[in-house]
């Protein structure tokens, strides 16, 4: 609005430059994923057949090939990978909330001058390398790792626990890496909570745990949902954590896609997996936008 | 409310041949279906301290922003010093504005803030420094030149904002709630300083305010706005004593309103029949009125006196019972109910610390006032 007088070209430029960048490099690529997922793999560079082929001079034909999607539905491997992704994403989101909510609550209720440092400490690990944070857990969780050494040294267990290369290791890795993404939005909603609401509830005869259940928790739902989506959606496509911490039977879409792409060089199948993953994600993403908008309305 | 500013005898708005410094012609500003400013025409003259007064949402800020150039009228024209500025951007207008939030640039110190406008003009550095020093001393904050805005108190910020907006010698200074962010004590003191600076520089001030006391104290004239329109434009005393509409009468101070019709008019003496009053009401009004015409009389509570007896012959009398008393220290407000049920309020100064026979609850009283004390609303 403000830069309007006499400057519509500037306005258009401000809008157009990021719009076209994102349309070209974020939106358009999805069409290519769709296109390649409908083509046949071949031994070539790039390793797929074009949909539009010239058979004879001047004659062009469109070959659409649904066999990749057929395979996804027929081979139980892919559906169990979808199920595996949903399970890992769901369970680790739950654990992130169970650990992150109390932390966010504790930070929001701490003395004012403590809050910034405490938040910084939540964010700080995020600035160190993601890979290295997972690597740290390999050293802790593996059979002759720190955890087993410690427990055996204390005489609590006789033989090492098998955590590495199991789903538990994946959950630990996911919760560890995604914890900041639930703490921050939860903190943001909890800090906005008007404390006089709790005093009013207490004044009307509400005990502390009921105050939490009836006032704090419902009012922090936008933060809970935003945090959940920020964990659930990326974990659905997570590759690094299941690859490094999970075992051979940890089936997840992201990991499978990586294998199809890099090991089997089957670009069309990898593309159809990506399309499947995308479809599995659109629903929660739409939900996220919906609740964000509601949170925005609530905050104004 | 009692310190009405005494204006110089030559009142510029009474000289129609002179080109006004601001001429607003049929200006309308529409946001969607909402008329923020609805067909306003207004002249403001050189050297005036002009207030746009009204409650929030009345369109006063939109009108000010159109003078500054931040909003373009949907229709109508604005002239400043004879020049049509309707479509001229803010950075080319010969006016400057003091913002409600002060809008001091947080990353510049006081001197740089004040020099900002001069720099845009391309004024040479040495000249600029002189001008900044001059302004700093005008608002008496010479010692703060190197401070950043966040290191200043509210009153100091207000002074910097004023100095910055005066730096370019604007033809008009627009002030958006200039005292709104100050506490009460500081506000009263600053009112007089603003008036002094305005008189010294001779610049036309156009002030937006929602505070009637502030407008009454400082202004040469007040435009009272309501729902995008102007209710009345007059000097403070006239606006208070002779409101022309019901809204104007009730917006400023308290008022008792009596609906009735004209019985007769002799010269400037009008007799009005009102069903709620015990006698005919007499009022001074110089404009001719037709007998039978419906009018409303506006009577300020402080104009009412308690009479000893009821006089069958005399006009302007009411009888009733005191139902409520509010003691405010300097005055007391009495709410009287008339036999017909109508409420009338009047005030009495508390002249003595211990009154001999103070008025009390449920007391029957007779109220009266002079014909000069009442206003006539014909709308």
């Amino acid at each position, binding site marked *: 609005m*403000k*830069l309007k007088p006499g400057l519509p070209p500037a306005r258009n430029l401000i809008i157009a430059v990021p719009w076209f960048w994102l349309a070209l490099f974020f939106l358009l690529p999805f069409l290519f994923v769709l296109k390649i997922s409908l083509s046949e793999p071949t031994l070539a560079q790039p390793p797929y057949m074009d949909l539009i082929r010239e058979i004879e001079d001047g004659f062009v034909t469109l070959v659409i090939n649904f066999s990749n999607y057929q395979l996804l539905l027929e081979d139980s491997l892919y559906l169990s990978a979808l199920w595996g992704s949903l399970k890992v994403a769901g369970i680790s989101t739950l654990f992130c909330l169970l650990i992150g909510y109390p932390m966010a609550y504790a930070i929001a209720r701490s003395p004012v001058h403590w809050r910034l440092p405490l938040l910084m400490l939540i964010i700080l690990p995020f600035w*160190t*390398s993601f890979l290295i944070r997972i690597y740290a857990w390999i050293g802790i969780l593996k059979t002759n790792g720190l955890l087993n050494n410690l427990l055996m040294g204390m005489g609590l267990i006789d033989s090492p626990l098998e955590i590495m290369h199991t789903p538990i290791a994946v959950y630990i890795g996911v919760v560890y890496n995604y914890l900041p993404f639930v703490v921050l939005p939860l903190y943001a909603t909890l800090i906005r909570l008007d404390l006089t609401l709790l005093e009013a509830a207490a004044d009307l005869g509400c005990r502390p745990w009921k105050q939490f259940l009836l006032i704090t928790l419902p009012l922090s739902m936008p933060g809970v949902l935003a945090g959940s989506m920020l964990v659930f959606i990326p974990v659905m496509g997570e590759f690094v954590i299941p690859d490094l911490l999970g075992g051979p039977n940890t089936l997840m879409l992201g990991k499978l896609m990586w294998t199809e792409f890099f090991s089997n060089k089957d670009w069309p199948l990898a593309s159809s997996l*990506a399309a499947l993953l995308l479809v599995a994600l659109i629903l929660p993403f739409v939900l996220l936008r919906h609740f964000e908008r509601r949170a925005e309305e609530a905050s104004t | 409310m009692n310190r009405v500013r005494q204006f110089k005898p030559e009142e510029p708005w009474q000289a129609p041949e002179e080109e006004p410094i601001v001429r607003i012609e049929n200006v309308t500003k529409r946001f969607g279906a909402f008329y923020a400013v609805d067909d306003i025409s207004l002249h403001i003259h050189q050297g005036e301290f002009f207030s746009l007064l009204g409650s929030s949402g009345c369109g006063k800020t939109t009108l000010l922003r159109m003078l500054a150039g931040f909003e373009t009228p949907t229709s109508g024209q604005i002239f400043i010093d004879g020049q049509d500025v309707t479509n001229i951007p803010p950075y080319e207008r010969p006016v400057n504005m003091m913002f409600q939030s002060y809008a001091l640039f947080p990353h510049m110190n006081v001197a740089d803030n004040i020099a900002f406008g001069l720099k845009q003009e391309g004024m040479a550095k040495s000249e600029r420094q002189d001008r900044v020093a001059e302004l700093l001393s005008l608002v008496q904050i010479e010692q703060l030149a190197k401070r950043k805005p966040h290191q200043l108190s509210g009153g100091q910020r207000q002074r910097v904002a004023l100095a910055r*907006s005066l730096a370019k010698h604007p033809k008009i200074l627009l002030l958006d709630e200039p005292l709104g962010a100050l506490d009460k004590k500081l506000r009263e003191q600053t009112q007089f300083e603003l008036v002094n600076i305005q008189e010294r520089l001779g610049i036309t001030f156009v002030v937006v305010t929602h505070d009637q006391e502030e407008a009454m104290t400082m202004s040469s004239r007040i435009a009272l706005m309501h729902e995008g329109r102007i209710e009345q434009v007059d000097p403070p005393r006239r606006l208070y004593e002779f409101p022309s509409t019901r809204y104007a009468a009730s917006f400023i101070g308290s008022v008792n309103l009596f609906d009735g019709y004209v019985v007769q008019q002799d010269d400037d003496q009008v007799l009005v029949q009102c069903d709620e009053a015990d006698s005919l009401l007499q009022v001074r009004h110089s404009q001719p009125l037709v007998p039978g015409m419906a009018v409303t009389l506006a009577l300020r509570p402080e104009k009412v006196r308690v009479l000893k007896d009821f006089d069958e012959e005399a006009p302007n009398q009411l009888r009733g019972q005191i139902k409520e008393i509010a003691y405010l220290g300097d005055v007391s407000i009495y709410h009287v109910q008339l036999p017909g049920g109508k409420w009338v309020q009047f005030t009495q100064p508390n002249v003595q610390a211990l009154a001999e026979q103070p008025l009390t609850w449920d007391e029957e009283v007779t109220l009266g006032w002079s014909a000069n004390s009442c206003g006539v609303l014909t709308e």
Partner: protein
Amino acid sequence: MKRRMPLLISILLFGYAFLYIPIASLIVYSFNESRLVTVWSGFSTKWYGELLQNDQLLGAAWLSVQIAALTASLSVVLGTLAALALVRFRRFRGRGSLEVMVTAPLVMPEVIIGLSLLLLFVAMETVIGWPAGRGMNTIVIAHTTFAMAYVAVVVQSRLAHMDLSLEEAALDLGARPLKVFFTITLPIIAPALVAGWLLAFTLSLDDLVVASFVSGPGATTLPMVVYSSVRLGVSPEINALATIIVGLVSVAVLIAGFILWRQEKRNSMDSN
């Protein structure tokens, strides 16, 4: 309120222990003499020495830093424009799509971003001959695409909190819109730009998945080297690298914290 304090404090202690014990273990064992990362056999800094001799790793690190710096600078420009468009222009054609495209990369799984961009680059190369081959430039484009979304979020919140009358005051004092942007708006949102730059830099430096898809044979980034060596097993060199990264980040955060603290202190002193 008071009664629950011990509970809250123990929650925080547990939470921060969970966050920091793994990092602490990395640092401790980077000074371990033995190649077996989990058996302590004496203090040594020899792994740091080996790290400095690892040319492949150092080369990858240098490439990653270059990519991250380019990505961060491009992301700040594009992200700021997107934020300006979304905050300042209430209605325009394409607003809805811009909003979606700015938010979606924040949660989009990296495997999808990586694969889809690779397919785009391959198709572009066959059709228009650009980008010829993949490497640093394709990685920068890919990283910018998701990093600019983070910048946009940071700048958007700063812009939304900025007092619009500051810009109006500058216009009122005779500055033209472009000048207002550079003398008023930009300095005021500068902290958000710096934060956004650092965020984009870190995101780019940290990315393995997207870079693996869109990189070519010649361009191996630091995470790619780390990944292949981690897959082969635990190695003290990686511990040493981790310690250096944690050290650099902590120093940066401490400096930022100190600057903030000093500013705050100066402000409170001046206002008294």
